[in-house]
Each structure stands twice: as structure tokens, then as C-alpha cells.
């Protein structure tokens, strides 16, 4: 029965996570044990991370797990931060609109009105109208439906596969661990957008293929984060005690490892929602999104680009809306992290 301490764990276990990208970082961690955080960025990093900040992933990875209690405790102090509250409210609004867009508009997103073509923003049309006279505010809200759902599907795929790979890898160790992590490495080497392009070509255009492509693309970060957490939790005294007490691995996994690992994974999930949204927008911009008349956010921005000079709102307002969503997500996680420190 060992009673290994965390720094040592970092020194011996993290190098096993070695990969093309992580090896050097892990080595740095091994050497600079006093600053384990410096090793972490790569653990969660991946090429072409469209939006979420690496440093935030870094924090997500380096935070010891099981912070849900802490989160709840800090919720009250966070509630008085106006920026944070605003961001949370905005995200809440977007999520609600994604599932019930009818709550915020009475119009039909697909109904054309040639007479009201290219009206500028007004009380009647908050975001103005597009080249076919459709209300852009309404189209934006119905776009949330597609984009948010696509982001959730992508995230679901990334979390399920990532979690499974990470747990398997972390628990099994040895050859199997190395094999799984090599697979993740290979995926890291192919830029997400390129991989997504190839997958979308294979599966065809549409919201679901785009979501699957993005999900597969952002999966490695989850696998790595989960694995790192499992490795850490596995050697915690109470887990070892529980194992010594005769509990089976599945039981330990469910009662100790997963609950204690999910904190960082959850923070990563919030961040990667922003990444997923940006990737989905990029792929719709390149023309691989939902079939018209449905329009994801990226499609709306891209559809308006021919009117940038003459009717800038058609493209700019949806663009700013997307930026506001991603910024809010980034702000929420960053604020939580700062509180946590």
C-alpha cells in the first residue's frame, strides 16, 4: 500500500501520457514539479482549437477534480458579479431559444416577404430583414435551434467517446493505454477543420454530419483530460483504500473515480461548447451546413456577406451574436476559475 503524493504522481504518471505533443510538456512537468500547471496545456490542447483558450484548458486540466462542492460554494459570490450574471443570463436565453424559439418571436423564419426586402433594424424587425424579406431576428432564434443542438451533439460525442477512451486508458495502463493514446495522437496531428471537411464529405452536408465531424474533432481533449484525472484519482488514498477493502474496479469507477474526475471535464465541456459553435459556424460558412431554408448561425452570416456594403446588418448582427455567445461562455468559465483559485 503506497501513499503516493500528488507531485510524485505527476512525475511518474504524466510522462506515460507522452505523445508527439505532450512528451516535452510532460517532461517539463516532471522536472518542474513545483509548477505542474505548466505541463498541462498540452494535455488538453489540440491543433486548431478554434476558440476556447488553451490556458483555460490548462486550468481545467490542472485543477484537481471534485470541485463541485467548491463550485456551489462560490456560486453565491459569483452572483454579484454583473458581467458574469449577464453572461449566464445571455447563455440561458440562447439555450431556451434553441429549444423554444417561438417564445421570443411570433414570426415564421421561412416566410418570405419580397416587399419588406432588406429593411434595416427597427422595433418591428430587431435584426432587420434579409434579401427575401425574412425577419432576421426570427431566423437567428431558429438558427439557435440548429447550432446549439449541433454543438450539444458534438459535445455529447466528444464526451462519451472521450470519457470512455480516457477511463479505459487511465485504468488499464501499459500497452493498451499506450495504444489508445497513440490513436488520440494521430487525431491531434490532423487539424480539426481538415478532418471535419473530410468527414463531412463522407457523410454529406447537414447539421448532424457537421456535428459528428466536430464532435470527433474535439474528442481528443476529453480523452486526455479524463485520462489525466483518472490517473490522479486512482492513486488518491481513499480510492486505494476502497480498492484494498475489496471493492471491484467498476464499483470504484462509479463511486469514486468518475465523480471526482468530472469537474475538469465539465469545465472543458463548457469551453468546448464555444469551440464547437465556432467550428460549426465555420463549416456552415464554407457551405456544409443545414439544408435551406433552415439556417445555422454561420449560414446566416455567410448569406449576408454579399450585402456587407449596402446592408451590413444582414451579416454583422448575426456575427456579433455568435461572438457574444462564445465570449459569454469563455467569460463564465474564466470567472469560475478565478474564483476557484
Amino acid at each position, binding site marked *: 500500500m503506497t501513499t503516493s503524493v500528488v507531485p510524485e504522481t505527476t512525475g511518474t504518471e504524466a510522462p506515460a501520457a507522452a505523445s508527439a505533443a505532450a512528451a516535452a510538456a510532460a517532461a517539463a512537468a516532471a522536472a518542474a514539479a513545483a509548477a505542474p500547471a505548466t505541463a498541462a496545456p498540452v494535455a488538453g490542447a489540440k491543433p486548431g482549437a478554434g476558440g476556447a483558450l488553451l490556458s483555460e484548458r490548462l486550468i481545467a486540466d490542472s485543477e484537481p477534480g471534485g470541485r463541485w462542492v467548491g463550485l456551489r460554494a462560490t456560486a453565491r459570490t459569483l452572483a454579484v458579479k454583473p458581467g458574469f450574471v449577464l453572461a449566464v443570463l445571455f447563455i440561458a436565453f440562447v439555450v431556451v431559444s434553441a429549444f423554444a424559439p417561438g417564445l421570443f418571436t411570433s414570426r415564421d423564419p421561412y416566410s418570405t416577404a419580397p416587399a419588406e426586402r432588406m429593411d434595416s433594424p427597427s422595433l418591428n424587425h430587431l435584426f432587420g430583414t434579409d434579401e427575401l424579406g425574412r425577419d432576421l431576428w426570427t431566423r437567428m432564434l431558429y438558427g439557435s435551434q440548429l447550432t446549439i443542438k449541433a454543438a450539444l451533439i458534438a459535445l455529447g460525442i466528444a464526451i462519451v467517446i472521450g470519457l470512455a477512451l480516457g477511463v479505459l486508458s487511465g485504468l488499464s495502463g501499459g500497452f493498451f493505454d499506450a495504444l489508445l493514446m497513440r490513436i488520440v495522437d494521430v487525431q491531434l496531428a490532423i487539424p480539426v477543420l481538415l478532418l471535419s471537411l473530410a468527414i463531412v464529405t463522407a457523410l454529406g452536408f447537414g447539421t448532424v454530419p457537421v456535428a459528428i465531424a466536430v464532435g470527433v474533432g474535439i474528442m481528443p481533449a476529453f480523452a486526455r483530460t479524463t485520462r489525466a484525472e483518472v490517473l490522479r484519482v486512482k492513486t488518491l488514498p481513499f480510492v486505494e483504500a476502497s480498492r484494498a477493502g475489496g471493492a471491484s474496479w467498476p464499483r470504484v469507477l462509479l463511486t469514486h473515480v468518475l465523480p471526482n474526475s468530472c469537474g475538469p471535464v465539465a469545465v472543458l465541456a463548457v469551453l468546448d461548447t464555444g469551440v464547437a459553435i465556432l467550428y460549426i459556424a465555420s463549416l456552415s460558412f464554407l*457551405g456544409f451546413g443545414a439544408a435551406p431554408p433552415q439556417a445555422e448561425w454561420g449560414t446566416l452570416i455567410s448569406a449576408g456577406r454579399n*450585402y456587407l*456594403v449596402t446592408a451590413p446588418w444582414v451579416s454583422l448582427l448575426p456575427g456579433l451574436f455568435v461572438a457574444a455567445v462564445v465570449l459569454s461562455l469563455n467569460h463564465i468559465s474564466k470567472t469560475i476559475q478565478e474564483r476557484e483559485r
Partner: protein
Amino acid sequence: MSRRGIAATALAVTAALGLTACGSSDDEGGANTTAAEPVAGGTLKVAFFPDNPQFTCLDPFQTYWIEHRTVIRNVADSLTDQDPKTGEIKPWLAKSWEVSADGKEYTFHLRDGVTFSDGTKLDAAAVKANFDGAQGVVKETGGTAYGASYILGLDHSEVVDPLTVKVVFSAPNSSFLQASSTTNLAIISPDSYKKTAKERCLGQYVGSGAFTLESYKPNELTVLQKRPGYTWGSALSKNTGEAHLDRVEFSYVAEDSVRTGNLVSGAIDISWPRSPITVEDRELIKKSGGVIESRSLPGVASAYYPNASAGHVLSDLKVRQALYKGIDLATYAKTSFGDDYPVVGGAFDNTTPFYASQASKLAYDPDGAIKLLEEAGWKPGEGGYRYKDGKRLTIVFPTSSLSVSSELIQDQLKKVGIELKLDVHPPAELPALYKNGAYDLASSYFTRADPGALQFLLDPKYANSKALATNAAAPETTAKIQALFAKARETTDDAVRKQAYADLQALLIDEGVVFPQYERVQFAGVSKDVHGFAFTSESFLKLNDVWKQQ
């Protein structure tokens, strides 16, 4: 048919064109008339829509997209030229010609002293080499080469004397004379035909045009240079000698707004879009002092072609007729392209010779559409759509992202209970979809100043997509269409030809074979410093008269 016969043809064409030619360009600002004396020199910068991503080609015979046909027009000359105003065929490389009484033999008398830019002589042997080469390409590609429909029935060609060449057909081909004026049968040097079809596609050929091809970087930059010593321009240009411009650069820009922005900010001289320039951008260009030029592209209008094969909703003539009544073409044209935009009036654009408007049959009549659908057994149901035997009235339209304002038509059809499903695919996937019959509507268009252009789409024997052609109509209707084309092609009597094409245009709408979407107007945004702008009869850009204010 002799020269007199040709004159008669020209007259008939003139009559057909009289009402419609250039109908849309009058109020768009007009050309920068060359009041001032042309200035020689300078580089003209033209921005095109992107190069064909699926098929890189600059070979006259194999190229079908309009941008490269503009490039070819200025690099290689043709035997004849066609007057954009009247549709008349005029001398060019051939100073005269005769057509035999049975319409099977065309004899061209070539102009003396013409050379290709590599110095070799353009003589009867060179022309023969071109026809032989074209036949070779047709064989090599199994008839799919684009130029194939221009030489239908070509048997062989022969050198009569150094400046006389005879082209012999196995069956009469009355549209061949027009074909001889097109870029597709532009004459290139015999050496060019010693290269492979692929090498020619990459620009490895020489013509006798007022410009020579300096370089072709696909989808990046195509550069032309003035050909010194050029003296054989067609009489349709003011300037039949050396070009005014030293150099022409064609770049490829994907974004319409960027092309317009480049023109307005002075980075380019001519903006040449694929789809019509939006009303907003037209205003912007005019405000910057530029000029909007426009002319309908002759040939097949932008239209939908049904899959009328068994098991598809459009196999029912009533549903097809309801489709005409359910689409508001006038509102579509106005909303998509502006108040003064012409409304499409049939399978062809209005600059096509022998054009006969079918507008009365294409009027918007939602009540009539509903009545027809009711008769056909489609009853209203959930979501405002119509249903029969529990199946929704859904029309699947696979498209690439190019399609203009399809969502407007989608919304119009929804009002009569038809669901138009826009199915977006990469362009490269569309042929496979057509082949598998996994569609109800397909859209296409094709530019050629002759109704024969439609054979490239609708005659299964010559069509670019055999599946699209086969599915578009029931076999007996297809037979009728082929018979009318044959009748028009194989006659030497212009009245018969005119009647055949009129019958054809009526048939196409009556039987629901073609669903016109919009008249294809070629717009060009032209900087105020550019003078002498001119469209060819096929609405391509002709550079002989163009000069730039220095």
C-alpha cells in the same frame, strides 16, 4: 442552300431577334461610347467567378463555362462571326462560304495571310486538322465532350485547295453555320492537336486571335498579351487590327461582394459575375462612376428539369402543370434581381434566335395550382402541405450552393401545399444523384446562340447528363422533342425551321419538360476608365475595341 439561303436564314433570325435582343440593357447606363480617340496600351484587369473546380480546361472544344469562353474568344478566331444585334452570321476567318442544296456540305473560303501566333499558316489543312481533332476528342470521351453537340452528324472534312475547306455531314445540320462562329469551334494550330486533350486544357495551344495566352494558372490568373501584327478582326468590331490593350489579366474571385468592392475601389476594371449582380451592388457601382453592362445570355434559360420517370411525383402531368402555376416568376425576378429585370418566358433566354415566348402559360395562378393538385388527388394535411395515400407532396431538388433565391420559390410552392426540398450537395456529387434518379427536379442552363443548345441537356444521345435527359420526359415526349430538333436541323427551309422551334418551345411547356426559373442576364460592372466594351453574340466579352483611359 446557297449564299442566298444564308441571307434568308439571317433574315429569319433577325426577325426572331428583332423584338428581344438586348432588351434589358437599355436603361442600365449604356456603354461608354468611344467618343474619344482610343488610347493604346495598358493592362485591363477583369475579375471572374471562380474557375471550374471539377474540370480545369481552356481548350476551345472542351470548355463550356462562360468565363473561359470569353478568354478563348480573344485568343482564337472562328471561321465566322455572329452579329449580336441581328444574329446574322458574318465572315471572319472565312471570307465567304456555300452550303449545298441538301444542307450536308459546307464549303468555306478562307482569308489569305492569316497566321497562328506561332507563325504557322492558318490554311485549309489547319482547319481540317481542327475538325479531325474535334472528332478525335468526341470519340475519346464517348461523346461527352462539350463540343460534340456543335458538330452533330459531322462525317469528315476535306481540303479542296490551300484556302478552301469542305465540311461534310452525314445528315443536314442547319445549326452548323452558327456553330462555326462559336468559341467551341475556334480554330487552333494543327500542332495544338498533336498535344493531348489534357495538355490543351492547360492552355498548351495557339490560336490566331488578337491576343495570345501568356499564362494560365487555374483559378488564379490568366494573362493575355496583345498579338502584334494582327489584321484579321471580324468586321463586327470597329477595330479589326491590333488590340488597343497591351495586356489583359483575368483573376478569379469567389465572393460577389469582393468583386464589386474591387471594382469600386479601383483594384480591377471589369467585374464579371456568374449570377446577376444584385440591385444593391449595381447601385454601388453606378455611384462610384462605373457603368453596368448587361445582355441576356442566349441559349437555355436557368431552369428546372423534372424527373418524370415512374414512381416520382412529377410523373403526373397535373402536378407538373400545378408547378408552373405555383411559381411566381415575376416576383422571383423582381426580388432576386431588381424591378427592371426581365421575366423569363420559356425554355430559352430572349436573345436566343427563334425565341418564342411562352409567358402566357407561365403566369402565376395559385388557385389554378390548387385546383390541379386537388384533381390529381393531393389533399391538404399537416403543416400546410398536401398528401396522397399518407405521403407528403415533396419535390426533392438536389443543388449545390450556387442556386439563387431558391428559398423564395420554396416558400411560394409551400403556399399551394408543395414541399420543395432543397438538398445541398458538393457539385461533384450531383451527377451521381442524377444517375441514380434520386431527385425530382434538377437545374441546369447552357449558353449558345442557337436553340440547338437544348440538345446538350435534353437529348439523351448528346446530353451532358444522360440521366437528366432521359428522366425529363416520358419516352414518347422525348421522341417528339428529338423529332422537332431533327426537323429543325435537317431542313433547308427557314420557315420550317422556325416552325419546328416554335412547336418545340410550346411542347416543352405544355408537356411540363422545362420549368424556367430566370432569364440569365450577363452583367458586367465596368470602370469609367474603360471604353469600347462589347458583348459577343453569346454575351461573352470581346476585347478588340476595348481601351483604357491612361
